[in-house]
């Protein structure tokens, strides 16, 4: 393999899964190389996890937003330790536990034959996917803790003094709402962001109200299948409408941004006919559940989710003629990236390793008869995979190997940096975040803390552009529309994004929507933007959204054009208009037949307010994030 040797202190936890040929970091030498995950494989029974067992306590059926409820056993301390090294050790150990318990669970569970991954799909309760169940024990640490990384920068949240609060809000929310900047300044950005990083701690009445509009999103796959006809797109339309609604109205803004981010990173398109019954469970049980948790656990949960098994065909891949679709995208998009040095042979062997799954009745089923057996080598990973029963432990070990690769650390770090900092983020930042990822055993929170604490973020004003969905959400937020009481308003808002090319969750391929400006230089989308802003400001459409219209924009609208321009600027921009903004508004209004002065509450006054607001909402500052 052409991969660079791992750096000292990085990725130590994966070496248990790797052959001696894979360079173990010196610091890790002799620590847990004997971790027995691939030793007992030949004798591991098929039922490696008891998917039908009770879930950990404290996972109530809270429906589609359960991912936002506290994890019963959070891997991250609620109050992060200031000492980032302690943080790293903590997370690394917990991941280690997962590996150990994976093997133990496999050995203990017993039983043979087909196992149905039923729990997440039938109960609506907390998910219990392959690795999740395996990792549910948090008890005794076995083995020697790995050596802490020499230095783990950025493990604690420490916002730079020169980070503008407005910039922070633009990046971690879907846009400013009236008063938000003042509120956050008053509370303190550090405290506010700490709350955002622990979304379960936040009250979210508006997000809850949206959740109540879509009670069906908590349905199990079995319930969906018993109530709807095959291929019905109801669940996916509801999911998309709720996604847009939460982006606009939820107080857990960062969480919603991350849900969109991970939904694209581990993309399963919605709507799509063949995941009609499972896609909403993927959202709840994979993305929302792990969005602020462990990347490794999210990856493992995605791999064997029926929605992913269906979309990338691993659920239809069997025997010695495997389907390569999932294996290729797993390497290229989900983990190490296309430049990691793997070749076509690696893809084919990874595909062989992932045979054995099928989707029956919307459930993921492991059928050992369809699992290819034989030694597998992919990049630096080897596994004897000697029996059909060894298939799932081998798959799990491979996913864990991939999640902990330095190349995966860079993939995740870079993508987060592209989301929050710049289209072409500094390598120094990416490397630093990758180290935090590795030191934290793939935990996402420490990476986010490091990212938000970075000088690169503070220095990145104007370097990110809103994509159509983000522009639309930002516009509705600044207009301060009431939370909808009618689902129709959200359906209309969601569907409105199709002509812009950015219907949320709908990107058709494995790589997710691009997040760089160069991919979105579309005149068609720009025209949609002009028209959607005009329509939202005027409250023409969507009619059931709780839009207030131009009359409500200003409490006491002035009686002449120039004063309206000033007042509207302060209202929608949050500041006085710049000279260029002021001049452009005057140009626009002078180009109409609207008079320069008007009677209070007249049609002319209302239209002047509306046009000035429309124009300012098309200003460069509103089109950037």
């Amino acid at each position: 393999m052409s991969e660079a040797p791992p750096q000292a202190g990085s990725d130590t936890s994966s070496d248990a899964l790797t052959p001696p040929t894979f360079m173990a970091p010196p610091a890790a030498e002799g620590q847990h190389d004997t971790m027995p995950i691939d030793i007992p494989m030949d004798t591991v029974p098929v039922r490696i996890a008891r998917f039908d067992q009770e879930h950990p306590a404290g996972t109530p059926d809270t429906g589609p937003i359960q991912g936002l409820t506290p994890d019963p056993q959070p891997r991250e301390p609620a109050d992060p330790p200031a000492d980032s090294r302690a943080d790293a050790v903590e997370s690394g150990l917990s991941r280690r536990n997962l590996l150990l318990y994976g093997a133990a669970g496999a050995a203990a569970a017993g039983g043979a034959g087909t196992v149905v991954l039923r729990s997440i799909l039938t109960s609506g309760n907390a998910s219990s996917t392959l690795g999740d169940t395996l990792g549910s024990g948090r008890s005794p640490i076995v083995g020697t803790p790995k050596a802490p990384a020499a230095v783990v920068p950025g493990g604690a949240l420490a916002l730079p003094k020169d980070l503008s609060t407005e910039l922070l809000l633009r990046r971690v929310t879907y846009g400013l709402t009236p008063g938000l900047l003042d509120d956050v300044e008053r509370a303190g950005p550090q405290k506010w962001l700490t709350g955002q990083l622990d979304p379960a701690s936040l009250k979210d009445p508006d997000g809850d109200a949206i959740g109540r509009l879509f009670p069906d999103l908590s349905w199990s796959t079995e319930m969906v299948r018993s109530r709807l006809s095959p291929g019905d797109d109801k669940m996916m339309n509801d999911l998309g409408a709720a996604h847009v609604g939460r982006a606009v109205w939820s107080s857990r803004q960062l969480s919603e941004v991350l849900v969109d981010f991970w939904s694209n990173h581990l993309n399963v398109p919605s709507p799509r006919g063949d995941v009609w019954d499972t896609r909403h469970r993927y959202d709840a049980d994979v993305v929302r559940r792990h969005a602020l948790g462990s990347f490794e656990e999210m990856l493992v949960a995605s791999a064997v989710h029926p929605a992913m098994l269906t979309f990338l065909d691993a659920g239809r891949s069997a025997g010695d003629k495997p389907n390569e679709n999932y294996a290729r995208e797993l390497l290229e998009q989900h983990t190490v990236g296309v430049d990691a040095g793997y070749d076509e042979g690696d893809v084919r062997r990874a595909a062989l390793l992932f045979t054995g799954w099928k989707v029956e009745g919307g459930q993921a089923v492991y059928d050992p008869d369809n699992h290819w057996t034989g030694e597998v080598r992919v990049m630096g990973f080897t596994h004897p995979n000697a029996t059909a029963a060894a298939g799932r432990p081998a798959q799990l070990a491979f996913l864990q190997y991939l999640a902990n690769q330095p190349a995966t650390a860079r993939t995740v770090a870079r993508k987060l940096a592209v989301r929050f900092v710049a289209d072409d983020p500094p390598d120094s930042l990416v490397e630093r975040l990758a180290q935090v990822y590795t030191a934290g055993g793939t935990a996402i929170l420490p990476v986010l803390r490091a990212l938000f604490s970075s000088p690169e973020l503070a220095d990145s004003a104007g370097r990110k552009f809103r994509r159509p969905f983000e522009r639309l959400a930002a516009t509705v937020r600044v207009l301060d529309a009431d939370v909808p009481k009618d689902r129709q308003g959200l359906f209309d808002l969601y569907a409105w994004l199709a002509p812009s090319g950015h219907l949320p969750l709908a990107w058709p391929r494995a790589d997710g929507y691009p997040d760089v400006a160069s991919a979105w230089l579309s005149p068609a989308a720009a025209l949609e933007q002009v028209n959607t802003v005009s329509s939202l400001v005027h409250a023409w459409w969507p009619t059931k959204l709780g839009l207030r219209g131009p009359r409500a924009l200003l409490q006491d609208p002035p009686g002449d054009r120039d004063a309206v321009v000033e007042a509207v600027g302060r209202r929608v921009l949050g500041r006085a208009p710049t000279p260029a903004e002021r001049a452009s508004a005057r140009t626009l209004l002078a180009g109409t037949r609207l008079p320069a002065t008007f009677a209070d509450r007249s049609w002319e006054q209302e239209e002047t307010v509306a046009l000035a607001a429309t124009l300012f909402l098309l200003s460069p500052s509103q089109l950037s994030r």
Partner: protein
Amino acid sequence: MTDHHDGYEPADPTDHTAGGFEVGRRTLLRLAGVAGVLSTTSLAGARVAFGNRRSDDDDGGRNGDGNGEVLVVLSLRGGFDGLAAVAPVGDPAWAALRPNIGTPERAVKRVDDTFGLHPGLSPLFDAWDDGVLAAVHGVGQASTSRSHAVATAELERAAAASVKTGWVDRVAALGDAGLLAATQVGNPALPGSATGPRDKLAVGRLASMNLSVSEEVVPLAAWQRAIGQLHADARPQVARPTSAALRGVATLRPLADRAADDEGEDAYPEGPLGDALRDVARLVKADVGLRVVTVDADGWDLHAGAGRVDGGALRDRLQVLAQALATFRGDLGDDFDRVTVVTVSEFGRRAAENGSGGTDHGRANAALVFGGSVRGGRVYGRWPGVAGDRLVDGDLAVTTDYRSVLAEVLSARLGVGSAVFPGFSPARLGLVEGR
């Protein structure tokens, strides 16, 4: 860039069934744009000579110095199965490669000793017999990547990695090209081939090329002046798309109004491809200065469940493709003589089927070339063969660089030279008549 997966139609606010929409957005646009409609109802002729006049508002629709010839690049995204579409039924190794999802000799329209056309292409059989449809087999690119993203990026750059523009941008760079010289239709986002500094238009639906604020309230020119001022110091990523969109509206609004009013039935298949080609035909007929039009047709990445030759996912997609193209030809009428459609795809499929009734990523492919000047009714290229020793890692070998196909159309029809593909010497295929 954006497109919609197989079988998915983007939710259309005018569709009352999609989510119980109450008011069609299009209706709303029309109500808002009453003045615009009134001002253009006098346009009755099929060809509106935008190209030769300078609009009072804007010069965005200027024809430039194009010669009226249009290359339509149809991107079959996901990896087209050229082996199934133009099947080598005469190659003795073929049948055994795909025992379940094959295109067998008995099912095809036999076109020569080696090849037969998949029955899903039957709406185009007349075009083949009329000599306006040809295929080139063994077409591919130098890249050996089997990654959609990498292979697509290289296909659309169509030059060494040091070149930072896409090939369509390089066409738009030649001579005096107007805004519409390089236009994407259907998919709202521009493809990688359009990457580069020259302005281009993207038209999602032609009927939407309008403003929702009535012209009677705010003339388009006022929007253009005001937004021009507002974006004067903005980065080009912000300023360019809006500016191009408003120039596009200035040019296309009359056509948009007519398209919005056109409720007539036609034979285009339902879905994004039929909608896009219907709009392309409108633009071609109006002679607005098109040179290269890019259109996407997604949904070819059939790793599983491709179906049998007489029914299933692949057959359905081929039928939609063929029906859309055949309708496009009829719709264009005489204008078909100045249009050439070329299909491209990031890679082909592996020669052998996989274990889940589909095919994985392969290498060489078949390209379809369709137009009034095509020397059709035959398969071009050198057949590499599908016998075990002829395949490369299980894939069909590349014998014709796809740029040779594009270069020939660009050169023979559009009069565009070699600057489009720097460092590349195209092979001469003789696919199209010169002008």
